[in-house]
């Protein structure tokens, strides 16, 4: 090729790259500077699951899981476990807290079904790794949200979650038999994005409780605002010992599990001094 034609082509190429590049740079600069402003003290949603109220083959568990699955059009791939998508499910107690390495576990705890879902951590490792902010922690109320329009399906968040809470759509969820006619008008997701529980953000916006909590009848699951000292969740946590999954990792999970023996502390150890909280409970 003659050098002048070569030079012309180089010039055209560089100009095109320059135009694209400059718009890209200005966009990036604008995006980085448009950071979410820090919110004033808002809500901190959390959930307490009272494991004392659950037992094996409890019909309530299916009711709870179905409430979520129906409300959110979760595809049923139980015949195809490789493609499984689940937002809330149960494992037995030993598996849910397997790093405890229980030996001689109390009989009623051995097979106790433990409901697992996204912990909506206060220090979430999953949002830290997302390269597109398709998942983020809402500063106003602590919900770890998903934006299915933005997710690129890299699954880095799935890798970073220490609790296995996230599912990826390996195939089109509408191919699942239960979604041929979706049970609800909640948008299904598409093949190629990651999904998980969002604490029913669409219901929270209407002042309602999450679907799983609403399926309960006797405070088996309690949902509330930890920033409100008078809330039921704060009350329960003040009265009972509750544990969280893998707390040593520093994720600050906000799903609390009450495990303790049904007998009260007074029955077990009458001589132990019980501290009174200011204006609170024993």
């Amino acid at each position, binding site marked *: 090729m003659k050098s002048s034609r070569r030079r012309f082509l180089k010039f055209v190429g560089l100009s095109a790259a320059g135009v694209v590049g400059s718009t890209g740079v200005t966009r990036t600069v604008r995006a980085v500077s448009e950071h979410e402003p820090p919110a004033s003290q808002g809500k901190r949603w959390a959930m307490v699951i009272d494991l004392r109220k659950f037992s094996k083959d409890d019909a309530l568990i299916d009711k709870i899981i179905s409430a979520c699955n129906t409300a959110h*059009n979760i595809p049923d791939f139980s015949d195809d476990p490789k493609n499984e998508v689940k937002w809330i499910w149960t494992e037995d107690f030993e598996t849910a807290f397997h790093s405890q390495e229980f030996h001689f576990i109390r009989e009623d705890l051995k097979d106790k079904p433990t409901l697992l879902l996204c912990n909506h951590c206060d220090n979430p490792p999953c949002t830290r790794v997302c390269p597109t902010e398709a998942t983020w922690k809402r500063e106003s109320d602590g919900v770890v949200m998903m934006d299915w329009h933005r997710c690129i399906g890299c699954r880095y968040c799935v890798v970073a979650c220490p609790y296995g809470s996230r599912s990826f759509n390996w195939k089109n969820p509408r191919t699942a038999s239960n979604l041929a006619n979706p049970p609800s*008008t909640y948008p299904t997701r598409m093949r190629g994005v990651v999904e998980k529980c969002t604490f029913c953000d669409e219901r929270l*916006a209407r002042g309602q409780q999450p679907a799983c909590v609403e399926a309960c009848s006797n405070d088996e699951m309690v949902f509330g605002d930890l920033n409100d000292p008078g809330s039921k969740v704060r009350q329960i946590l003040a009265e009972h010992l509750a544990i969280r999954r893998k707390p040593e990792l520093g994720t600050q999970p906000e799903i609390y599990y009450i495990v303790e023996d049904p007998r009260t502390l007074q029955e077990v150890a009458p001589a132990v001094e019980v501290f009174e909280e200011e204006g609170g409970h024993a």
Partner: protein
Amino acid sequence: MYDASKIVAGLAVFAVLATSPLWFNALSNASPAAPALQLPTNGSTECVEATDYMRTSHMALLNRWRDEVVRDDIRTYTSELSGKSYTMSLTGTCLDCHSDKEKFCDACHTYSAVDPYCWDCHVIPEEAK
């Protein structure tokens, strides 16, 4: 110019290909008339915004709704046309009036060979139980 015959021939082929939509439509029986849209049958005469604006920019409006609902948890929209409040929802608000997707949304989209993938996720009320 070197290789003049090859270059001119190449340019001619390119010109034909680049203008193909024009002469293809001219030669075929494609109707130039705009598609007939079925307007809402639920009695509603007013959309969220003015018809002209919706015709040109409903995609931009929907994108804005998407970001405000999903990312900012803002779910109420105030119409610039009427001042009325609407819930920002494709399925819940738009399809509430424009209930026949085929005769409304698809009529224009098919005509202009546009294939939005909103419907891969967003549920059309008829198909839900």
